[in-house]
């Protein structure tokens, strides 16, 4: 009897993809997650609108305060905060079913016999959950529509980067969950493994908040820390590549370890090769990152004329900071000036002097406490200021530059004082009911 021709790969892939999507849609875990997301998004959104409205009432009376009223920080980041919770705590339970349930039910033994590589099979599984993840954006889309209808301002690039950040975070969590279920014998073990990573990342970020040095760097590289960059409206190739590499690494590990027919030493060898590639990709992007400030008020950037001038500095600029790492002045300096300088000055050395604050009312042990020293091309200057309006002239003076700022439109903010209570039923009744009906339909195996 002749060997049978294998079915066409794309047809097979389409069928498996549909089957995977169907498998997710009949899962009660997905619909429970969506119901919780609806409630959380609704709660976060209305809380944010209330607070934003309260602040806006003051800002409308004092126009100089209005520039601080931007919807990204005031409305969208808190609203999407609900997604962070669900992606950290609930999404792993949905994602581990992709492989864990197939392993438990024996379906995996059948799927692995299909003329598809394990890489393709894993790719189809992650595509399926990616498509299903889009359903979870329904509450956020509803919040955006509602905000727009209430007269709120939306700046699409800010929303796009926020959604992209949550998408990358979800992708990474899904990959970790898939790998966890691949190497675990049971679904609860896989869930514990995945939650250990996501919650561990959360704890790490919390512990590292406000810290500099190694812990601070580690906190920035935690999943939560990386997501925060997107919430800030700053698109960085380093963070995009880190998220993608991490997701790809766990995805590859899943594909390597999924097939029980492969020998252990082969799996270990391939895993190390994957780790090596990950390290190369991450280090190459972290060492030469590119940034794009997508915020409407360009708050992560100097004036374009300043940025251009700072990029021309061909000698090292050294800044020595005599501040305690816990000092709030250092935190302001980091956010408002140093972060921008790091993205603009080609050769910047920032040194933190080992110095401790003696407290607000005590005499400092060091007379230099609070002093920030600058050195460029053998010329020195110093100041106690942490404001960019005073620091930039000091640097230009050292370099010998005259910079005339480009004329930029003044950001006036988008204050809005409104009441949105009438639409609460959409998040608290309509969407949960919709998802509940879908779950009941799915329980009958009808998807």
């Amino acid at each position: 009897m002749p060997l049978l021709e294998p079915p066409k790969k794309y047809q097979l892939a389409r069928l498996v993809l549909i089957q995977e999507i169907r498998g997710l849609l009949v899962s009660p875990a997905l619909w429970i997650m969506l119901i919780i997301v609806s409630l959380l998004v609704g709660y976060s959104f209305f809380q944010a609108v209330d607070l934003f409205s309260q602040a806006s009432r003051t800002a409308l009376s004092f126009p100089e305060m209005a520039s601080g009223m931007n919807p990204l920080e005031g409305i969208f980041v808190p609203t999407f905060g609900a997604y962070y919770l669900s992606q950290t705590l609930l999404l792993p339970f949905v994602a581990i079913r992709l492989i864990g349930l197939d392993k438990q039910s024996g379906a995996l033994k059948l799927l692995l016999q299909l003329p598809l590589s394990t890489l393709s099979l894993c790719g189809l599984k992650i595509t399926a959950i990616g498509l299903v993840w889009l359903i979870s954006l329904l509450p956020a889309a509803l919040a955006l529509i509602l905000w727009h209808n209430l007269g709120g301002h939306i700046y699409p690039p800010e929303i796009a980067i926020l959604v992209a950040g949550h998408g990358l975070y979800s992708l990474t969590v899904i990959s970790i969950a898939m790998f966890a279920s691949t190497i675990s014998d049971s679904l609860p073990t896989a869930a514990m493994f995945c939650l250990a990573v996501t919650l561990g990342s959360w704890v790490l970020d919390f512990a590292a908040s406000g810290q500099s040095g190694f812990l601070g760097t580690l906190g920035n590289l935690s999943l939560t820390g990386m997501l925060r960059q997107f919430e800030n409206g700053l698109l960085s190739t380093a963070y995009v590549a880190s998220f993608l590499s991490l997701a790809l690494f766990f995805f590859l590990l899943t594909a390597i370890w999924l097939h029980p027919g492969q020998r252990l030493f082969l799996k270990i060898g391939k895993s190390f090769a994957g780790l090596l590639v990950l390290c190369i990709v991450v280090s190459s992007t972290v060492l030469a990152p590119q940034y794009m400030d997508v915020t409407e008020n360009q708050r992560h950037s100097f004036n374009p004329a300043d940025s251009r001038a700072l990029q021309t500095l061909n000698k090292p600029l050294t800044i020595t900071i005599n501040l305690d790492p816990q000092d709030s002045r250092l935190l302001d300096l980091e956010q408002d000036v140093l972060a921008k300088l790091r993205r603009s000055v080609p050769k910047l050395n920032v040194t933190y002097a080992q110095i401790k604050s003696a407290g607000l009312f005590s005499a400092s042990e060091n007379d230099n406490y609070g002093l920030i020293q600058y050195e460029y091309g053998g010329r020195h200057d110093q100041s106690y200021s942490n404001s960019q309006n005073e620091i930039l002239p000091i640097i230009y003076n050292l370099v010998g530059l005259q910079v005339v700022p480009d004329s930029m439109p003044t950001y006036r903010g988008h204050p809005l004082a409104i009441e949105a209570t009438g639409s609460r039923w959409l998040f608290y009744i309509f969407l949960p009911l919709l998802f509940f009906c879908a779950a009941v339909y799915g329980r009958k195996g009808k998807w």
Partner: protein
Amino acid sequence: MDKNLTEQQTHELSVIGIQKRFGTYQALSDVSFTVTPGEILGLIGPNGSGKSTLLECITGLLPVESGTIKWQGRQLSVENRKHVLWYQPDNILPFAEQQVTTTLSFFQHIHGQGRMDIDQLINRLELSPMLEKPLKALSKGYRRRVLLAIALLSRQPLLMLDEPFDGFDLRQSLAVMDLLRDCRANRTMILSIHQLTEAEKICDRFLLLDQGRVLAIGTLDELRKQTGLSSNATLEEVFLAIT
């Protein structure tokens, strides 16, 4: 005549020197056998003798320490086995939350135009009343029928079934045997069976496995001769004599 050509014509599947260990436990020791086209080979052995392990090693779902699998005289890589054989494991419940009709339809489309018509299969296995129900809601007997339907929808020339009669009563077992006999015209089968009465009724040859070792292989008559039993000795008596 060329020796290889002869082997190619008479042996569809050749399993040569399979060794499998789980840690220090030797699950399969130098297992070798061949299967001829259209034949039904019964893997017979007590629980834990290595029947399922052997089938999973042949499929490539378990790695082997050593051994070769050949198809029509040509060595088969794990990837190529997917085109040649289909293995239906025991005790599985694939896509349990989905309706039976959805699962059957998925496998029908996966295999394309299968060797058996799906409607005919549903009728023969009396699955019609269960089509709208999720697999997990079915009784053990119906679950086995659905699994058998999934296996028979496959189009690979070699079909390996693990305990296909487990969970069936006598009447159902006979019906399933009839169905399998109808398929044998264009398929080769390896059935792992621990119920010797059923095995005797359907298999052409038997491979007796115990503690991962092949104790004997042959037709019932050949096994009777090997053990010196009379020509009316049952497979059960032969098995007891060998083990």
